[in-house]
């Protein structure tokens, strides 16, 4: 459970850092691109987590459907 939490936290922070600050581990990624400040504020966290949960649900539904057809 701790490892899952770490993985989730890493994915969340990578997405938020790239979109919110245009950086990864402190290094600038694309020079000249303006980052979306919203993503490093509180709403960005909610959005990213919601979209991640949506993605997880899609994957879960898909694997369940594949198992049914087998």
């Amino acid at each position, binding site marked *: 459970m701790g490892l899952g939490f770490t993985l989730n936290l890493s994915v969340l922070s990578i997405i938020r850092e790239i979109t919110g600050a245009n950086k990864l581990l402190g290094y600038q990624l694309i020079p000249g691109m303006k980052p979306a400040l919203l993503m490093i504020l509180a*709403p960005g966290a909610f959005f990213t987590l*919601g979209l991640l949960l949506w993605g997880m649900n899609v994957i879960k539904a898909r694997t369940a459907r594949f198992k049914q057809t087998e």
Partner: protein
Amino acid sequence: MDIKILFTILISTIFINNYVFSRILGLCPYLGVSKKLDSAIGMGLAVIFVMTMASFFTFIMYKYVLVPYHIEYLSIIAFIIVIAALVQFVEMVIEKVSTPLYQALGIFLPLITTNCAVLGVAVLNIDSGFASQDFGLLYSVVQGFGGGAGFTIALILMAGIRERLEIAMIPENLKGLPITFITAGLMAISFLGFSGMKIF
């Protein structure tokens, strides 16, 4: 003492620095209990009570026990004990007074103990430097009440929205938590509009 300061603290903890939307504290009861409006109101009142009393008792404990004996580093243990005793009290009262509410809240009632909003308000009271001010006790109680009221407003708004979302046509995979998170994000954007507001 200036009544303006109390008003400023109250408005800023309810709207500008809302514990859920701008500090992202106390999310687990926020997402867990906001399914039904009735239980959300009960939970909100319980959190208001616990946060107000917790900020009162932790402030007294910090100023008159921890600081004189130079044991400020034990503040987290002391605060947690105070909060746990308060939550135990609230749990017993709710179980006796309203059994349906007790069953509706379920695991989330004892979880107020580790609710980061409650410990957060106790620690923030100390960080705000209220301990060295003249009317610090009053300020910290107002901040605790405002934090609880802000949490309750967020919870009740969310419960109302979620009751409507239950019957709305949304994609199958978005139902439940994902749409709740996205709604919370939209509400957090609207609460961002309060930031930078000057009260006086």
